[in-house]
């Protein structure tokens, strides 16, 4: 399951540039983002018939392209270009075209009170910390796990196969085994199969692949050994 932020996430330009694109979605630290806000100073503004292109600089990277589509029917109003040197707040969607990231803004507002900028900085740290923690806590599954060989009967056979905190029962069991493994190079697929006798190797591999892509585990000496990213 994916952890998706439904809200509008305050970001730095550097975070947006580092966001990974998977198909149509973007992720920052494995959290899916779509609508974002940035705050920065306009370095450049260019007006075209259908849109205004700004270059917005928040000091964390090079200025980012921010495009605002204008309503060609409307006289004045939306078509006013905010001058360079103005600090603005932008709310928009992240886009990537030919490997270049940009924002399509649905709202651009000059800052009237620069203390909002200070707040924005703090909100960025808070938002990303909370999003990251929510993602990590999805791995702390409350269901009980017996280390004397699962067999699957008590552990998840009686329980539902619905995702708990974003993980299915299979995934949770694999993750818990990996987390509790004290060996430096982590847990091997063979050892997982040995401990999870009721789970086929294919199922284990699927779980490992999912957990790895979600950032709960990572491979160590080779693709057969994994450790948990959640340090105890």
């Amino acid at each position, binding site marked *: 399951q994916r952890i998706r932020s439904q809200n509008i996430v305050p970001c730095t330009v550097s975070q947006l540039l580092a966001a990974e694109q998977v198909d149509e979605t973007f992720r920052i630290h494995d959290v899916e983002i779509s609508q974002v806000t940035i705050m920065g100073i306009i370095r450049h503004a260019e007006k075209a018939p259908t849109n205004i292109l700004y270059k917005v600089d928040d*000091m*964390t990277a090079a200025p980012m392209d921010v495009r605002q589509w204008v309503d060609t029917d409307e006289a004045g109003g939306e078509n006013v270009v905010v001058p360079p040197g103005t600090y603005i707040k932008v709310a928009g969607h992240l886009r990537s075209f030919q490997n270049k990231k940009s924002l399509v803004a649905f709202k651009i507002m000059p800052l009237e009170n*620069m203390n909002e900028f200070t707040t924005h900085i703090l909100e960025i740290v808070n938002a990303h910390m909370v999003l990251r923690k929510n993602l990590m806590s999805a791995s702390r599954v409350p269901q009980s796990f017996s280390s004397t060989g699962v067999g699957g009967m008590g552990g998840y056979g009686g329980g539902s196969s619905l995702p708990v905190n974003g993980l299915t029962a299979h995934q949770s069991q694999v993750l818990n085994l990996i987390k509790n493994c004290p060996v430096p190079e982590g847990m091997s697929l063979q050892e997982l199969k040995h401990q999870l006798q009721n789970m086929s190797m294919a199922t284990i591999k699927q779980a490992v692949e999912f957990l790895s892509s979600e950032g709960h585990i990572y491979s160590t000496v080779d693709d057969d050994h994994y450790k948990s990213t959640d340090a105890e």
Partner: protein
Amino acid sequence: MGDVHEVPRPRIATAHLAQNIGKPVCFVGRVVKIHPTGKLFVLSDGEGKHTTVELSEPLDEEISGVLEVVGRVTNQATIMCMSYVQFREDKSPFDLELYNEALKIIHEFPEYFPCG
């Protein structure tokens, strides 16, 4: 040298100058004094510590209040200014002490506020 506006510029206070010698930075502070030549001025940060800002060309306007300076830290731990902007305070005064607290947070959590 390149254009410092195209690279990451960490937000710093006076205390961080020494560890950023030679690097592009962003410094916010209140104008304390301006040298008669107009080629240097002193800003005070949120902790009241002073930083000297140098210009390659003399100022061509009056500056006052809170300035955000983009530039490079010199070997003498001053800032060679490439550009600056005055923070508007027409509606509300800028809380520089709070900004300084925010700097501490972003320095403590670079993973959530990456610069570069």
